[in-house]
């Protein structure tokens, strides 16, 4: 039992417990130091992830390779930024309790377990470890009815999804006799024809994971939860867990079920099409920015899944690049959303951005960068993300996906550009409060990444290439 391979997870878990203990003891408010400690723990873990070797551990339940490294790094970075986003917001909204960053830390630990899962059971454990803290922080603003509603909805539907996933696991185990990914892979490659039971089990597993990435038709919770949850929580929801769930989906489908690609590819194609179309159209009428971003994230998941539906290494590389770019521009956008306050009160309507180009040109500029990037306008990063997945779809002959993708990105450009129009051409609706420095830092960092990605895409492409190669062998 080579438990040292799982060092990053162990370090993160131990630091979480230590920070929790340290946060309970003092009488005074420990929100800020605990948050900082959590960010530090996440960064330390990220460093450890970079130095992690390849191999399996813990009786084959745990795997570490370039793919897991890439995804974990992304998830850790997203989680750290998520905590940064909450610093100022929670102070002002009276949510500055030290449990908050610790819950996010444990959620992140769950993600890492998911990403490194090499067994349907460790997958399930990771998923639950992720979900439970998320249910809590969605309802973290206990005095707000909307927040409580969001938490409850998420919990009920999440429980349903978990149940489906577990049921799928049992089906697979029943028909294949194992839950270990490596042995499942061997079993399927040896099998003459696939038994319907396994197929149904795979669909159930896909359903459970598609719920987490909020892909159509398992997306219904997203707009309500995104709107109701506190904005930093929404930012967190829309970034790190998506990375983990997508990673898991890719690992499960391309790993043990890789030989069934002809079968699940159709399902993923349908999910991708549905997500792109819904994400493109449903956001048009939205007046609430968080709801709009919920539909936007559904659409982006659709584009990313296009890379998975293709099932080739180019498609997988496109998916990985897409997720990285999406996470950064999404966090940047949410940094702007979190910063939106008028006379100390948080606002989240599209119209509240009116005239921002004049009242706060810097924030407006970053927001415009993120919106253009989300719409996929060159030379911003979002364009390249779409480019790689479309390229993969076209090369593999998935014309429907590519054509629908292009058309829906035109449709979605409408609501992204409308925000730019509102900021620059509408009469100011009164100036917003100055953004705190933690948020401007996030905006500038992610914004620069979005703008400058076109100049140095090579390192990320190389990392994604290596990760894809690790998964597809």
């Amino acid at each position, binding site marked *: 039992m080579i438990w040292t391979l799982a060092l990053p997870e162990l370090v993160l878990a131990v630091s979480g417990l230590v920070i929790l203990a340290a946060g309970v003891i003092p009488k005074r408010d420990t929100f800020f130091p605990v948050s900082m400690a959590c960010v530090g723990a996440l960064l330390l873990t990220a460093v450890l992830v970079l130095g992690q070797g390849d191999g399996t551990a813990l009786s084959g339940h745990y795997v570490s390779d370039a793919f897991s490294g890439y995804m974990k790094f992304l998830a850790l970075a997203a989680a750290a930024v998520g905590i940064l986003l909450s610093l100022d917001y929670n102070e002002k909204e009276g949510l500055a309790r030290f449990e908050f960053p610790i819950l996010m830390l444990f959620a992140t630990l769950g993600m890492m377990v998911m990403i490194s899962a090499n067994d349907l059971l460790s997958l399930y454990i990771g998923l639950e470890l992720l979900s439970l803290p998320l249910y809590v922080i969605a309802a973290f603003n206990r005095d707000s009815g909307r927040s409580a509603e969001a938490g*409850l*909805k998420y919990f*009920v*539907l999440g429980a*349903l*999804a978990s149940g*489906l996933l577990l049921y799928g696991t049992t089906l697979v185990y029943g028909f294949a006799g194992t839950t270990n990914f490596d042995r499942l892979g061997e079993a399927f490659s040896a099998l003459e024809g696939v038994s*319907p039971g396994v*197929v*149904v089990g*795979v*669909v*159930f597993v*896909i*359903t459970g994971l598609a*719920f987490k990435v909020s892909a*159509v*038709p*398992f997306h*219904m*919770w997203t*707009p*309500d939860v995104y709107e109701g949850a506190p904005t930093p929580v929404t930012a967190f929801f829309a970034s790190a867990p998506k990375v983990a769930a997508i990673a898991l989906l890719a690992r499960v489908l391309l790993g043990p079920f890789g030989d069934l690609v*002809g*079968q699940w590819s*159709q*399902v993923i194609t*349908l999910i991708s099409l549905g997500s792109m179309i*819904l994400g493109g*159209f*449903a*956001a*048009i*009428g*939205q007046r609430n920015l968080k709801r709009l971003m919920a539909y936007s994230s559904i659409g982006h998941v659709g584009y990313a899944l296009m890379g998975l539906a293709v099932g080739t290494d180019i498609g997988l590389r496109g998916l990985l690049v897409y997720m990285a770019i999406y996470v950064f521009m999404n966090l940047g956008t949410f940094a702007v959303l979190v910063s939106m306050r008028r006379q100390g009160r948080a606002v989240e309507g599209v119209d509240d951005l009116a005239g921002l180009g004049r009242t706060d040109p810097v924030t407006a500029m970053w927001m415009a960068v993120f919106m253009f990037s989300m719409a996929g306008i060159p030379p911003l990063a979002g364009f390249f993300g779409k480019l790689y997945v479309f390229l993969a779809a076209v090369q593999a002959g998935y014309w429907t996906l590519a054509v629908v993708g292009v058309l829906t990105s035109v*449709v979605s450009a*409408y609501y992204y550009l409308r925000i730019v129009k509102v900021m620059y051409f509408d009469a100011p609706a009164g100036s917003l409060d100055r953004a705190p420095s933690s948020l401007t830092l996030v905006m500038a960092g992610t914004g620069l990444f979005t703008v400058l990605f076109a100049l140095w895409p090579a390192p990320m492409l190389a990392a994604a290439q290596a990760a894809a190669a690790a998964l597809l062998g």
Partner: protein
Amino acid sequence: MFVGAIFFPLLGACISGFLGRWIGDRAAQWSTVACMVLAAICGSAAFGQVALGGHPLVQLIWTWMDVGGLEVSWALRYDTLSVVMVAMVTFISTLIHLYSVGYMSHDATPARFFAYLSLFTFMMLMLVTADNLAQLFFGWEGVGLASYLLIGYWYDRESANRAAMKAFIVNRVGDVFFMLGLALTFYIFGSIEFATIFPAVEAHAADRFLGIPAIELIGVLLFLGACGKSAQLGLHTWLPDAMEGPTPVSALIHAATMVTAGVFLVCRMSPLMEYAPVALTVVTVVGASTAFFAATIGCVQNDIKRVIAYSTCSQLGYMFFAAGVGAYQVAMFHLFTHAFFKALLFLGAGSVIHAMSDEQDIRRMGGIWTKIPVTYAVMWIGNLALAGIPFFAGYYSKDAILEAAYAAGGGAAAYAWVLGMAAAFLTAFYSWRLLILTFHGEPRADHHVMEHVHESPLVMLIPLIVLAAGAVLTGYLFAPLFIGEHAHEFWHEAIFNGPHNHILHEMHEVPHWVPLAPTVMGVAGIALAYVMYMAMPALPARLARMFSARPEMVRNLPLIPAEGAEQQTEPNPGGLYGFLLKKWYFDELYDAIFVRPARRLANVFWKVGDAQIIDGMPNGAGSLAVEASRGAVRLQTGRVANYAFAMIIGLVVFVSLFLFVG
């Protein structure tokens, strides 16, 4: 020197156009005049060296385009043909720049005006010195542009804008044919360089294109292009309207230079035209018809500039049929002399208009000859030259044209000669009608205007006097060179006469009465004008009534200016008189055939094609997207049970898909 003659005007245009705002109007005006003077000096020197000294040359500037088999350079081709034009254009343009300094002194933006004027001169020079058809076309379009800008110079007047657009659009019609001719030339010869085309014409004489002899087709197409620029019958309608521009513009562009570009083109293409007898016949017939047709209209027009405009149209007809019978040298000679006396007439008319407080209707003039004696004198000289009275410039050239037409023989040439003689008579008649109505008789203007009648300033009179000298002398001085005994040495190889074309020689051996006949016609026309407008002033109106369908509409002379109504629409009395007054109904015809159907079609395209179909598609897609959005949002009920139901349904769909389809 050769480059300077062409590019000094461009320099002037740039200075005035781009820097006029900083250096002030006066500096801008005089800098263009200075540039033009330099250009005129260069042009005259070039004339001396190339035409008189006999040293044609080609000055290469740079390669313009090199695409596949098509190589086009910017090069200045200086042979006698082009140097005649260069000298004439720079000289007259200089005088007109000078005149404009006075004429435009009350204008708000003279710098812009002078920039356009110099730009036009540059484009015209580019046209005439072109070494290939593409460069010629560049100049061709350039003068069209400058003409458009100058006609519409007073852009706050609606009529000026309309006239400018009309000129541009009608010219574009001609340009289409020019471009077709250019393309066909490249297709047949594989080149558009004159130096390559001309020697190859004989080898390609039998080529056919779509069953039509190719050379003939090129000739006709290029001539149709020339028709647009030179206002020949059918495409002439823009020229009279172009008089909306300031008078110096009319003098420079619409009398002396640009409109002669078509004649120049035909002469330039003489090596090709000589192998296209049918095309030449077309040229002859159209030219002669225009000469006669425009002269008839000139007899009844009442706007001083329009009369001269129709006269220009008519004289261009002369030039064309001269070229049509093979006497290119004679056509160029008439072009050359005409430039002087027609510029003189226009500038004289401008001086009259200036004196009469911008009145242009000759029915409201009269009795002013003692008040503006210099203008009166130069108008006499101009008209004598135009009517072809002996020893004035027009006499030499117009007589030569008619002699050539007589000598050429054949049906088309005979037609041209008859119409040419008739036109000569009419020319003299309308010239003197103009002269008498403008300067003699009882003053018909109101006394405010009459009190202000004054001679123009010196800066305007000097060009008039110089041009008057030209109108007297150019015929006598240059006839021996252009069409006389020295013609061969003068023209060198610039104009090509086919092996059977001895027209230059034959035209000197016509019967003795032939050279006399135009003079007789001219004198008769003058006499008739005197009888009708001086001796019996009531006669014209009676004649007009006699030939009208609705005589009561013809108004008596002295015309009483209607109070308050500045520009009344002229009633149409119908009949022959109305036919002439309405310019053979060409405008009405075109309006009915082209303009109104085109507008109707455009309306259909706009209302149905654009507003409904083209706009409809994005609008429809937009509203569809909004509908789709509403539908998608309606699914979002907010109830957990519904959400869970959707998940289960999705699951069921996927499972069935797996089991039954996959």
